Protein backbone atom coordinates (compact mmCIF):
# COMPACT_ATOMS: atom_id res chain seq x y z
CA UNK A 1 0.00 0.00 0.00
CA UNK A 2 2.62 2.50 1.11
CA UNK A 3 4.94 1.55 -1.71
CA UNK A 4 2.28 2.29 -4.32
CA UNK A 5 1.44 5.64 -2.68
CA UNK A 6 5.07 6.75 -2.79
CA UNK A 7 5.44 5.43 -6.32
CA UNK A 8 2.40 7.43 -7.44
CA UNK A 9 3.61 10.63 -5.81
CA UNK A 10 6.98 10.32 -7.53
CA UNK A 11 5.19 9.42 -10.74
CA UNK A 12 3.06 12.58 -10.48
CA UNK A 13 6.11 14.78 -9.86
CA UNK A 14 7.98 13.15 -12.74
CA UNK A 15 5.05 13.62 -15.13
CA UNK A 16 4.64 17.28 -14.15
CA UNK A 17 8.35 17.95 -14.65
CA UNK A 18 8.25 16.11 -17.99
CA UNK A 19 5.27 18.19 -19.10
CA UNK A 20 6.63 21.52 -17.89
CA UNK A 21 10.27 21.26 -18.88
CA UNK A 22 10.24 19.11 -21.97
CA UNK A 23 6.91 18.75 -23.72
CA UNK A 24 5.78 22.36 -23.20
CA UNK A 25 9.15 23.51 -24.53
CA UNK A 26 9.22 21.43 -27.69
CA UNK A 27 8.30 23.46 -30.73
CA UNK A 28 6.26 21.14 -32.94
CA UNK A 29 6.25 23.70 -35.72
CA UNK A 30 2.52 24.29 -35.64
CA UNK A 31 0.16 25.72 -33.10
CA UNK A 32 -2.17 22.75 -33.62
CA UNK A 33 0.14 20.34 -31.81
CA UNK A 34 0.03 20.90 -28.07
CA UNK A 35 0.04 17.46 -26.44
CA UNK A 36 -0.48 17.04 -22.70
CA UNK A 37 0.73 13.79 -21.18
CA UNK A 38 0.88 14.55 -17.47
CA UNK A 39 -2.58 13.07 -16.76
CA UNK A 40 -1.27 9.62 -17.74
CA UNK A 41 -1.39 8.81 -14.03
CA UNK A 42 -5.15 9.43 -13.87
CA UNK A 43 -5.84 7.10 -16.79
CA UNK A 44 -3.97 4.24 -15.14
CA UNK A 45 -5.10 4.43 -11.54
CA UNK A 46 -6.17 0.89 -10.57
CA UNK A 47 -9.94 0.39 -10.32
CA UNK A 48 -9.51 -0.34 -6.61
CA UNK A 49 -8.27 3.21 -5.90
CA UNK A 50 -10.50 5.40 -3.74
CA UNK A 51 -12.44 7.70 -6.06
CA UNK A 52 -11.62 10.77 -3.98
CA UNK A 53 -7.92 10.04 -4.42
CA UNK A 54 -8.36 10.05 -8.19
CA UNK A 55 -10.33 13.31 -8.13
CA UNK A 56 -7.98 15.15 -5.77
CA UNK A 57 -4.88 13.93 -7.64
CA UNK A 58 -6.31 15.30 -10.86
CA UNK A 59 -7.12 18.59 -9.22
CA UNK A 60 -3.72 18.92 -7.53
CA UNK A 61 -1.74 18.10 -10.66
CA UNK A 62 -3.77 20.52 -12.75
CA UNK A 63 -3.47 23.22 -10.11
CA UNK A 64 0.32 22.94 -9.88
CA UNK A 65 0.74 22.99 -13.65
CA UNK A 66 -1.55 26.03 -13.86
CA UNK A 67 0.43 27.98 -11.29
CA UNK A 68 3.76 27.43 -13.01
CA UNK A 69 2.72 27.79 -16.63
CA UNK A 70 0.34 30.78 -16.33
CA UNK A 71 -2.77 29.05 -17.62
CA UNK A 72 -5.26 30.61 -15.14
CA UNK A 73 -7.25 27.52 -14.19
CA UNK A 74 -7.38 25.72 -17.53
CA UNK A 75 -5.53 22.60 -16.35
CA UNK A 76 -7.33 22.62 -13.00
CA UNK A 77 -10.73 22.48 -14.68
CA UNK A 78 -9.76 20.02 -17.39
CA UNK A 79 -7.93 17.59 -15.08
CA UNK A 80 -10.66 17.65 -12.41
CA UNK A 81 -13.26 17.04 -15.09
CA UNK A 82 -11.26 14.17 -16.56
CA UNK A 83 -10.85 12.55 -13.14
CA UNK A 84 -14.58 12.89 -12.39
CA UNK A 85 -15.50 11.51 -15.80
CA UNK A 86 -13.14 8.53 -15.40
CA UNK A 87 -14.55 7.62 -11.99
CA UNK A 88 -18.16 7.97 -13.10
CA UNK A 89 -17.58 6.05 -16.33
CA UNK A 90 -15.84 3.19 -14.54
CA UNK A 91 -18.52 2.87 -11.87
CA UNK A 92 -21.43 3.02 -14.32
CA UNK A 93 -20.33 1.32 -17.51
CA UNK A 94 -17.58 -1.10 -16.48
CA UNK A 95 -18.10 -4.18 -14.34
CA UNK A 96 -15.17 -3.26 -12.12
CA UNK A 97 -15.56 -6.17 -9.66
CA UNK A 98 -15.46 -8.75 -12.41
CA UNK A 99 -12.48 -7.05 -14.02
CA UNK A 100 -10.53 -7.03 -10.77
CA UNK A 101 -11.37 -10.72 -10.15
CA UNK A 102 -9.94 -11.53 -13.57
CA UNK A 103 -6.78 -9.63 -12.66
CA UNK A 104 -7.36 -6.50 -14.76
CA UNK A 105 -6.74 -3.44 -12.60
CA UNK A 106 -6.54 -1.01 -15.49
CA UNK A 107 -7.58 -1.03 -19.14
CA UNK A 108 -4.29 -2.23 -20.57
CA UNK A 109 -3.41 -3.54 -24.01
CA UNK A 110 -3.79 -7.21 -23.03
CA UNK A 111 -7.35 -6.68 -21.75
CA UNK A 112 -9.21 -6.61 -25.07
CA UNK A 113 -6.42 -5.92 -27.51
CA UNK A 114 -4.80 -2.79 -28.89
CA UNK A 115 -7.85 -1.50 -30.73
CA UNK A 116 -10.03 -1.37 -27.58
CA UNK A 117 -7.14 0.12 -25.59
CA UNK A 118 -6.63 2.95 -28.09
CA UNK A 119 -10.35 3.69 -28.36
CA UNK A 120 -10.96 3.74 -24.59
CA UNK A 121 -8.03 5.98 -23.72
CA UNK A 122 -8.25 8.00 -26.91
CA UNK A 123 -11.73 9.22 -26.01
CA UNK A 124 -10.67 10.42 -22.57
CA UNK A 125 -7.49 12.03 -23.93
CA UNK A 126 -9.52 13.78 -26.62
CA UNK A 127 -12.05 15.09 -24.09
CA UNK A 128 -9.24 16.58 -22.00
CA UNK A 129 -7.60 18.33 -24.95
CA UNK A 130 -10.85 19.60 -26.42
CA UNK A 131 -12.00 21.03 -23.10
CA UNK A 132 -8.61 22.67 -22.53
CA UNK A 133 -8.52 24.30 -25.97
CA UNK A 134 -12.12 25.52 -25.77
CA UNK A 135 -11.52 27.12 -22.38
CA UNK A 136 -8.25 28.63 -23.61
CA UNK A 137 -9.81 30.24 -26.68
CA UNK A 138 -13.04 31.11 -24.81
CA UNK A 139 -14.78 31.82 -28.10
CA UNK A 140 -17.15 29.66 -30.12
CA UNK A 141 -15.77 30.83 -33.43
CA UNK A 142 -12.54 28.95 -32.75
CA UNK A 143 -14.44 25.64 -32.62
CA UNK A 144 -13.01 24.28 -35.85
CA UNK A 145 -9.40 25.11 -34.95
CA UNK A 146 -9.88 23.69 -31.46
CA UNK A 147 -11.33 20.48 -32.85
CA UNK A 148 -8.39 20.11 -35.22
CA UNK A 149 -5.77 20.80 -32.57
CA UNK A 150 -7.54 18.52 -30.08
CA UNK A 151 -7.55 15.63 -32.57
CA UNK A 152 -3.91 16.09 -33.61
CA UNK A 153 -2.63 16.59 -30.06
CA UNK A 154 -4.67 13.64 -28.75
CA UNK A 155 -3.12 11.37 -31.36
CA UNK A 156 0.35 12.36 -30.19
CA UNK A 157 -0.54 11.83 -26.53
CA UNK A 158 -2.13 8.50 -27.37
CA UNK A 159 1.07 7.43 -29.10
CA UNK A 160 3.02 8.40 -25.97
CA UNK A 161 0.64 6.47 -23.71
CA UNK A 162 0.73 3.37 -25.93
CA UNK A 163 4.52 3.40 -26.11
CA UNK A 164 4.86 3.74 -22.34
CA UNK A 165 2.36 0.91 -21.78
CA UNK A 166 4.20 -1.33 -24.23
CA UNK A 167 7.49 -0.59 -22.48
CA UNK A 168 6.33 -1.32 -18.95
CA UNK A 169 4.06 -4.24 -19.82
CA UNK A 170 5.08 -7.45 -18.12
CA UNK A 171 6.24 -10.12 -20.50
CA UNK A 172 4.31 -13.39 -20.07
Amino acid at each position, binding site marked *: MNVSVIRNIFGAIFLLLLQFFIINEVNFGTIFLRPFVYFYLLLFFPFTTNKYVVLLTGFAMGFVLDA*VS*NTYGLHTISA*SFLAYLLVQFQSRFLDVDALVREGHFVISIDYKGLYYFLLYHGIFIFIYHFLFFMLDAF*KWNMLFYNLLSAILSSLLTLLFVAVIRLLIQKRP
Partner: protein
Amino acid sequence: MLYILNLLRKNLFTVVFVFLLLVGFYQLFQFNQFHSTFYFNSSKSAINSLARVQSNINGYFNLKSKNAALAAENLRLREQLLSNFIIKDSNKLFVSDSFGKRRYSYVLAGVVKSTTNLRNNFITIDKGSNDGIKIGMGVISPGGIVGIVYDVSKNFSLVMSVLNSKFKTSPFIPALKYKEGFVNWNGLDPKFIQLDGVSRFEKVNKDMVVLTSNYSSVFPEGIVIGKIDNVKSNKSNFFEINIKLGTDFNKLDLVYIVKDKYRAELDTLQKKTIDEIK
Protein backbone atom coordinates in the same frame (compact mmCIF):
# COMPACT_ATOMS: atom_id res chain seq x y z
CA MET B 1 -33.25 19.49 6.24
CA LEU B 2 -32.52 15.83 6.88
CA TYR B 3 -33.51 15.17 3.28
CA ILE B 4 -31.03 17.73 2.00
CA LEU B 5 -28.27 16.33 4.21
CA ASN B 6 -29.01 12.84 2.95
CA LEU B 7 -28.95 14.07 -0.62
CA LEU B 8 -25.61 15.75 0.00
CA ARG B 9 -24.14 12.61 1.53
CA LYS B 10 -25.32 10.47 -1.35
CA ASN B 11 -23.79 12.85 -3.88
CA LEU B 12 -20.75 13.87 -1.88
CA PHE B 13 -18.41 12.90 -4.70
CA THR B 14 -20.17 15.21 -7.15
CA VAL B 15 -20.31 17.99 -4.56
CA VAL B 16 -16.55 17.77 -4.01
CA PHE B 17 -16.06 17.76 -7.76
CA VAL B 18 -18.21 20.87 -8.24
CA PHE B 19 -16.30 22.62 -5.48
CA LEU B 20 -12.93 21.84 -7.12
CA LEU B 21 -14.34 22.96 -10.46
CA LEU B 22 -15.35 26.30 -8.95
CA VAL B 23 -11.76 26.89 -7.82
CA GLY B 24 -10.64 26.53 -11.43
CA PHE B 25 -13.50 28.55 -12.87
CA TYR B 26 -12.86 31.37 -10.42
CA GLN B 27 -9.38 31.86 -11.91
CA LEU B 28 -10.66 31.50 -15.46
CA PHE B 29 -13.37 34.14 -14.99
CA GLN B 30 -11.02 36.48 -13.18
CA PHE B 31 -8.94 36.44 -16.34
CA ASN B 32 -11.67 36.43 -18.97
CA GLN B 33 -14.48 38.58 -17.53
CA PHE B 34 -12.87 41.05 -15.21
CA HIS B 35 -9.51 41.47 -16.95
CA SER B 36 -7.81 41.33 -13.59
CA THR B 37 -4.88 39.15 -12.69
CA PHE B 38 -5.29 35.53 -11.75
CA TYR B 39 -3.66 34.91 -8.43
CA PHE B 40 -1.62 31.77 -9.03
CA ASN B 41 0.83 32.90 -11.66
CA SER B 42 4.54 32.54 -12.16
CA SER B 43 5.36 36.00 -10.82
CA LYS B 44 4.61 34.45 -7.45
CA SER B 45 5.65 30.85 -7.66
CA ALA B 46 8.94 29.46 -6.48
CA ILE B 47 9.37 27.47 -9.67
CA ASN B 48 11.03 30.53 -11.20
CA SER B 49 14.42 29.51 -9.84
CA LEU B 50 14.06 26.22 -11.73
CA ALA B 51 12.81 27.99 -14.81
CA ARG B 52 15.80 30.30 -14.60
CA VAL B 53 18.24 27.40 -14.77
CA GLN B 54 16.42 26.23 -17.85
CA SER B 55 16.52 29.65 -19.51
CA ASN B 56 20.23 29.90 -18.71
CA ILE B 57 20.81 26.67 -20.60
CA ASN B 58 18.50 27.60 -23.46
CA GLY B 59 20.21 30.99 -23.70
CA TYR B 60 23.34 29.43 -25.19
CA PHE B 61 21.59 27.85 -28.13
CA ASN B 62 20.90 30.98 -30.13
CA LEU B 63 23.70 33.29 -29.10
CA LYS B 64 24.59 33.92 -32.71
CA SER B 65 21.21 35.23 -33.81
CA LYS B 66 20.93 37.24 -30.60
CA ASN B 67 24.26 38.90 -31.28
CA ALA B 68 23.13 39.75 -34.78
CA ALA B 69 19.92 41.33 -33.46
CA LEU B 70 21.81 43.41 -30.91
CA ALA B 71 24.39 44.50 -33.50
CA ALA B 72 21.59 45.60 -35.82
CA GLU B 73 20.04 47.62 -33.04
CA ASN B 74 23.41 49.16 -32.20
CA LEU B 75 23.84 50.21 -35.81
CA ARG B 76 20.42 51.81 -35.89
CA LEU B 77 21.13 53.75 -32.69
CA ARG B 78 24.62 54.75 -33.83
CA GLU B 79 23.15 56.28 -36.96
CA GLN B 80 21.03 58.56 -34.83
CA LEU B 81 24.02 59.97 -32.98
CA LEU B 82 24.40 63.71 -33.20
CA SER B 83 28.10 63.40 -34.11
CA ASN B 84 27.13 61.89 -37.48
CA PHE B 85 25.59 65.11 -38.65
CA ILE B 86 27.35 68.18 -39.94
CA ILE B 87 25.43 71.11 -38.61
CA LYS B 88 25.39 73.78 -41.28
CA ASP B 89 23.35 76.43 -39.57
CA SER B 90 25.44 77.71 -36.73
CA ASN B 91 22.35 79.10 -35.01
CA LYS B 92 21.14 75.60 -34.34
CA LEU B 93 24.34 74.40 -32.75
CA PHE B 94 23.05 75.10 -29.30
CA VAL B 95 21.79 71.99 -27.60
CA SER B 96 20.54 73.27 -24.34
CA ASP B 97 20.10 70.83 -21.49
CA SER B 98 16.60 71.97 -20.75
CA PHE B 99 15.68 71.84 -24.43
CA GLY B 100 13.78 68.62 -23.97
CA LYS B 101 12.72 66.82 -20.87
CA ARG B 102 13.32 63.14 -20.71
CA ARG B 103 10.07 61.20 -20.92
CA TYR B 104 11.03 57.54 -21.31
CA SER B 105 13.67 55.49 -19.53
CA TYR B 106 14.36 51.80 -19.97
CA VAL B 107 15.12 48.85 -17.70
CA LEU B 108 16.87 45.79 -19.08
CA ALA B 109 15.42 42.41 -18.04
CA GLY B 110 16.03 38.77 -18.87
CA VAL B 111 13.27 36.39 -19.92
CA VAL B 112 12.80 33.54 -17.45
CA LYS B 113 9.87 31.78 -19.06
CA SER B 114 7.92 32.39 -22.20
CA THR B 115 5.21 30.54 -24.06
CA THR B 116 3.98 30.92 -27.62
CA ASN B 117 1.74 27.90 -28.02
CA LEU B 118 -1.30 29.02 -26.03
CA ARG B 119 -4.06 31.39 -27.07
CA ASN B 120 -3.19 33.67 -24.15
CA ASN B 121 0.56 33.75 -23.73
CA PHE B 122 2.57 35.24 -20.91
CA ILE B 123 6.25 35.96 -20.38
CA THR B 124 7.99 35.94 -17.00
CA ILE B 125 10.90 38.37 -16.63
CA ASP B 126 13.45 38.75 -13.84
CA LYS B 127 12.81 42.35 -12.78
CA GLY B 128 10.08 43.32 -10.34
CA SER B 129 8.80 46.05 -8.07
CA ASN B 130 12.28 46.31 -6.49
CA ASP B 131 13.48 47.69 -9.82
CA GLY B 132 10.56 50.08 -10.12
CA ILE B 133 8.43 47.97 -12.45
CA LYS B 134 4.72 48.71 -12.25
CA ILE B 135 1.65 47.08 -13.75
CA GLY B 136 0.81 48.47 -17.17
CA MET B 137 4.31 49.37 -18.35
CA GLY B 138 5.22 48.54 -21.95
CA VAL B 139 7.83 45.91 -22.78
CA ILE B 140 9.88 45.97 -25.99
CA SER B 141 12.80 44.01 -27.43
CA PRO B 142 15.51 44.84 -30.00
CA GLY B 143 13.13 43.51 -32.68
CA GLY B 144 9.95 45.34 -31.68
CA ILE B 145 7.10 45.33 -29.19
CA VAL B 146 6.72 42.44 -26.74
CA GLY B 147 3.84 43.17 -24.38
CA ILE B 148 2.51 44.87 -21.28
CA VAL B 149 3.42 44.21 -17.63
CA TYR B 150 0.44 42.36 -16.15
CA ASP B 151 1.46 41.45 -12.62
CA VAL B 152 4.44 42.30 -10.43
CA SER B 153 6.15 40.70 -7.46
CA LYS B 154 9.34 41.81 -5.75
CA ASN B 155 11.81 40.21 -8.13
CA PHE B 156 9.71 39.01 -11.05
CA SER B 157 7.05 40.36 -13.37
CA LEU B 158 4.49 38.67 -15.55
CA VAL B 159 4.18 40.22 -19.00
CA MET B 160 1.08 39.84 -21.14
CA SER B 161 2.57 38.99 -24.51
CA VAL B 162 1.47 40.51 -27.82
CA LEU B 163 0.40 36.91 -28.51
CA ASN B 164 -2.56 37.21 -26.16
CA SER B 165 -6.22 37.69 -27.05
CA LYS B 166 -6.46 40.50 -24.49
CA PHE B 167 -3.64 42.54 -26.03
CA LYS B 168 -4.53 45.54 -28.18
CA THR B 169 -2.54 48.52 -29.38
CA SER B 170 -2.91 51.25 -31.96
CA PRO B 171 -0.75 51.13 -35.09
CA PHE B 172 0.89 53.76 -37.24
CA ILE B 173 1.74 53.15 -40.90
CA PRO B 174 4.34 55.82 -41.73
CA ALA B 175 4.14 55.31 -45.51
CA LEU B 176 0.45 56.31 -45.43
CA LYS B 177 0.49 58.42 -42.28
CA TYR B 178 -2.39 56.23 -41.19
CA LYS B 179 -3.28 55.83 -37.51
CA GLU B 180 -6.71 54.19 -37.36
CA GLY B 181 -7.51 50.62 -36.35
CA PHE B 182 -5.96 48.32 -33.82
CA VAL B 183 -3.57 45.40 -33.60
CA ASN B 184 -4.76 42.14 -32.03
CA TRP B 185 -3.68 38.48 -32.28
CA ASN B 186 -6.12 35.90 -33.67
CA GLY B 187 -4.45 33.04 -31.80
CA LEU B 188 -3.18 30.97 -34.71
CA ASP B 189 0.39 31.72 -35.78
CA PRO B 190 2.92 33.17 -33.29
CA LYS B 191 4.84 34.82 -36.14
CA PHE B 192 1.93 36.95 -37.37
CA ILE B 193 -0.40 39.47 -35.78
CA GLN B 194 -3.57 40.93 -37.29
CA LEU B 195 -4.34 44.57 -38.03
CA ASP B 196 -8.05 45.42 -38.09
CA GLY B 197 -9.92 48.58 -38.90
CA VAL B 198 -7.86 49.85 -41.83
CA SER B 199 -10.23 51.38 -44.37
CA ARG B 200 -10.23 49.62 -47.76
CA PHE B 201 -9.72 52.93 -49.54
CA GLU B 202 -6.18 53.17 -48.21
CA LYS B 203 -3.37 52.05 -50.50
CA VAL B 204 -1.94 49.41 -48.21
CA ASN B 205 0.89 47.38 -49.70
CA LYS B 206 3.03 44.43 -48.75
CA ASP B 207 6.26 45.16 -46.85
CA MET B 208 5.03 48.44 -45.37
CA VAL B 209 6.38 48.94 -41.86
CA VAL B 210 3.90 49.23 -38.98
CA LEU B 211 4.99 51.15 -35.88
CA THR B 212 3.34 52.00 -32.58
CA SER B 213 1.43 55.26 -32.71
CA ASN B 214 1.52 58.16 -30.31
CA TYR B 215 -2.09 57.33 -29.35
CA SER B 216 -0.77 54.50 -27.21
CA SER B 217 -0.03 55.41 -23.63
CA VAL B 218 1.95 52.21 -23.10
CA PHE B 219 4.61 52.27 -25.81
CA PRO B 220 6.74 55.19 -27.00
CA GLU B 221 5.97 56.39 -30.51
CA GLY B 222 7.69 54.60 -33.36
CA ILE B 223 8.52 51.19 -31.91
CA VAL B 224 8.41 48.49 -34.58
CA ILE B 225 5.37 46.20 -34.55
CA GLY B 226 6.24 44.46 -37.80
CA LYS B 227 6.00 44.40 -41.58
CA ILE B 228 2.78 43.91 -43.52
CA ASP B 229 2.84 40.39 -44.94
CA ASN B 230 -0.43 40.12 -46.82
CA VAL B 231 -3.56 42.18 -47.35
CA LYS B 232 -6.96 40.62 -47.91
CA SER B 233 -10.10 42.55 -48.76
CA ASN B 234 -13.45 41.10 -47.76
CA LYS B 235 -17.04 42.34 -48.03
CA SER B 236 -16.72 44.85 -45.19
CA ASN B 237 -15.21 48.30 -45.40
CA PHE B 238 -11.98 47.17 -43.84
CA PHE B 239 -8.95 45.20 -44.93
CA GLU B 240 -7.80 42.03 -43.21
CA ILE B 241 -4.09 42.60 -42.75
CA ASN B 242 -1.45 40.15 -41.54
CA ILE B 243 1.66 41.67 -40.00
CA LYS B 244 4.88 39.70 -39.63
CA LEU B 245 6.03 40.48 -36.11
CA GLY B 246 9.39 42.17 -35.63
CA THR B 247 9.99 40.21 -32.44
CA ASP B 248 10.73 36.50 -32.67
CA PHE B 249 8.88 35.23 -29.62
CA ASN B 250 10.38 31.77 -29.85
CA LYS B 251 13.87 33.18 -29.28
CA LEU B 252 13.04 35.96 -26.85
CA ASP B 253 15.83 36.46 -24.34
CA LEU B 254 16.39 40.12 -23.43
CA VAL B 255 13.69 42.75 -23.15
CA TYR B 256 13.46 46.43 -22.22
CA ILE B 257 10.76 47.71 -19.92
CA VAL B 258 9.57 51.20 -20.76
CA LYS B 259 9.17 53.62 -17.88
CA ASP B 260 7.04 56.60 -18.83
CA LYS B 261 7.55 59.60 -16.59
CA TYR B 262 4.26 61.22 -17.60
CA ARG B 263 2.14 58.08 -17.51
CA ALA B 264 0.51 58.80 -14.14
CA GLU B 265 -0.31 62.36 -15.16
CA LEU B 266 -1.76 61.21 -18.47
CA ASP B 267 -3.84 58.50 -16.84
CA THR B 268 -5.33 60.78 -14.19
CA LEU B 269 -6.21 63.37 -16.82
CA GLN B 270 -7.91 60.81 -19.03
CA LYS B 271 -9.71 59.26 -16.10
CA LYS B 272 -10.89 62.65 -14.89
CA THR B 273 -12.28 63.49 -18.32
CA ILE B 274 -14.06 60.16 -18.64
CA ASP B 275 -15.53 60.54 -15.14
CA GLU B 276 -16.79 64.01 -15.96
CA ILE B 277 -18.53 62.79 -19.11
CA LYS B 278 -20.23 60.10 -17.08
